[in-house]
């Protein structure tokens, strides 16, 4: 409790200093729970936490949120769920009942968001997920009415990647042979289960196909076998550590395919930083319109405020979810969550990722599915209704 009082004192102090106003209303308590430790801590440290820090800082700098004519500062309470669904549930409960949080932000990842969904539903908080990809959006939002999905369906993510290959083949850039591998873990299995039939339906010949366990330390046997199959394109439904590992092995084995695709973490800035020019032409899950001034401005602000660059997939969506919440609260002028939720359902929002308008299943139907490293940026090349997609390019070696 001490920590909170201290926090309150500092925020109030800041409020008086910044706004120069003599009155300091009760601050708005914002609850945030996501991994700081455990298997997903690495992803959350890139995609989730910096956005919350930026948002709270910016809102408080301009004097807080305007709720029904009163300027109220944000006070954030952060909890580490240790990548454990039980802890996520407990932390959300704690935020609602012990900390009297006015707003609770959606947790991180598909699994933790779904574990928290019944609690959000019971408490009546809107849960705008920005890092959950699932095919069950309809079923889920039917059961949990206040749940929103920004990141899209996993089927689209996999099918669009296949479509990019088809387009390249139609253009005569690549041949018909594909090597496909996947990490044998939840999302990797799901993507592969969609990707394989999609490849077959598109008439591709799968010359090599395998899965590997999460945490495989040596991926060279896989890359050697993939190379021996002489594919024209390489697709990996991969997770962060192996996305890096597969790329490095491909360089070492000199797998000079014209289309190279790895999934999660290809859009991380650390991917570009590690592989530099070699990353040029690598395709991956996600993407953004890097040319949009809104995104560029957001990226610059995020880096200035937190020292970390946004990833080119879910980070922008995370920030967009905060913008949506902010707009809904300020426009309705209330912290009554039922009203705020209804507003989110009924309206369209201008965000750093462009316009977001949820359909009747609370799904954002316009999102990026495939991106590609071009000129040092991971640019969106395939989408389900976003503007600014660039033409995919053919990968020319690893130099």
């Amino acid at each position, binding site marked *: 409790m001490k920590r909170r009082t201290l926090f309150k004192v500092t925020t109030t102090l800041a409020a008086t200093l910044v706004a120069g106003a003599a009155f300091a209303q009760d601050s708005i308590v914002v609850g945030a729970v996501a991994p700081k430790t455990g298997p997903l*801590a690495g992803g959350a440290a890139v995609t989730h936490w910096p956005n919350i820090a930026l948002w709270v800082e910016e809102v408080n700098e301009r004097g807080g949120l305007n709720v029904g004519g009163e300027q109220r500062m944000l006070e954030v309470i952060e909890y580490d769920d240790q990548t454990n669904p039980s802890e996520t549930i407990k932390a959300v409960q704690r935020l609602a009942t012990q900390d009297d949080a006015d707003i609770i932000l959606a947790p991180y990842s598909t699994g933790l968001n779904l574990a928290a969904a019944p609690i959000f539903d019971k408490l009546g908080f809107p849960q705008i997920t920005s890092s959950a990809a699932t095919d069950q959006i309809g079923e889920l939002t039917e059961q949990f009415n206040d749940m929103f999905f920004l990141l899209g369906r996993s089927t689209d993510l996999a099918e669009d990647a296949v479509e990019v290959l088809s387009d390249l083949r139609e253009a005569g850039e690549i041949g018909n042979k594909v090597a496909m591998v996947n990490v044998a873990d939840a999302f990797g299995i799901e993507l592969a289960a969609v990707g394989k039939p999609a490849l077959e339906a598109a008439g591709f010949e799968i010359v090599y196909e395998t*899965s*590997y366990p999460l945490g495989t330390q040596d991926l060279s*046997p*896989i890359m050697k076998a993939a190379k021996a199959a002489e594919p024209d394109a390489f697709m990996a439904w991969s997770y962060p*550590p192996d996305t890096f590992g597969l790329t490095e092995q491909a360089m070492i084995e000199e797998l000079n395919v014209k289309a190279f695709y790895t999934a999660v973490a290809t859009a991380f800035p650390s991917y570009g930083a590690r592989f530099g020019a070699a990353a040029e032409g690598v395709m991956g899950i996600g993407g953004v319109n890097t040319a949009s001034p809104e995104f560029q401005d957001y990226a610059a602000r995020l880096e200035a405020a937190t020292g970390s660059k946004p990833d080119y997939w879910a980070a922008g969506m995370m920030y967009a979810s905060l913008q949506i919440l902010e707009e809904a609260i300020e426009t309705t002028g209330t912290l009554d969550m039922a009203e705020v939720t209804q507003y989110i359902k009924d309206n369209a929002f201008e965000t750093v990722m462009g316009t977001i308008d949820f359909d009747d299943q609370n799904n954002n139907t316009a999102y990026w599915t495939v991106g590609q490293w071009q000129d040092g940026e991971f640019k969106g090349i395939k989408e389900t209704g976003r503007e600014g997609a660039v033409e995919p390019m053919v990968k020319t070696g690893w130099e």
Partner: protein
Amino acid sequence: MDILITGLILGGTYALIALGLNLQYGVSRIMNLANGEMLVIGAFVAFTLFTVGQVSPLLTIFLVAPLAYVLNWLIYRIMLRPLVNRAKNRGMLEVDAILTTFGLSFVMVGIMIWAFGGDYFSYSYLARPIVIFGDNFGLNRVVAFLCAAVLCAGLFLWLNVSRAGMAIRAVAVSPENARLVGIDVPKLSARAFALGGAVTAVGGAVISTFLTLDASTGVMFTMKALIIVIMGGVGDVRGTILAALVLGIGETFVASVIDPGLTLVAAYALFILILLFRPQGFFGRKPT
């Protein structure tokens, strides 16, 4: 042929992971579950120096080794010595050590997150192909293999030739008898523990050139190390090296010939088979 070389190179990596634990468990009788965290700390230092000052990880190890030695010596003296004194028998020490070092691994993860954050860290170092017998291999992995070879050979020679090394081996075989011939067992145990920690941290610095890590990944390495040490036989460097190579070649064989999805299952199956038919490990002595 390339299965054999790839397997050997992977085995070298495994030796780097497990060698330190073998010293710690074999000599000091501490089943150190914080072994993986020590490895990640070594990797963190290498990563930081490389990204900030472009210092080659191969130079970093000369900084990491003495630092880790001192750190582990302190850990042993402050935290583990009381347990050794308190334990009535080896079984009790084992239980206490497992629990303490598990707690310690938490503390280390906590400190790393506090100091560096939870982000992934990876960098590119010697990520070039090198051709051996007509096949491509990652230069950084080959270099790591050479490091492992040098480390193994050095350790083996030192243990067999030098006086201090012989004394350490004597403690590994029988602490009671070692005491009778005038060996200062507590002092040597502390040194062996510190040395083991230094070896692990060096291994981490080398491994960071080709693996992507974050603050929470240590436990994966601890598991691998435990399996290798038990397979090889406790307290014998040769056993650990052999077990590391067997595991490396075994996993590569399964990945190349059967299915990469089954590599870890195969590793554990191998582990059980060895335990069932040779419970003391390749080079271990039968418990008396």
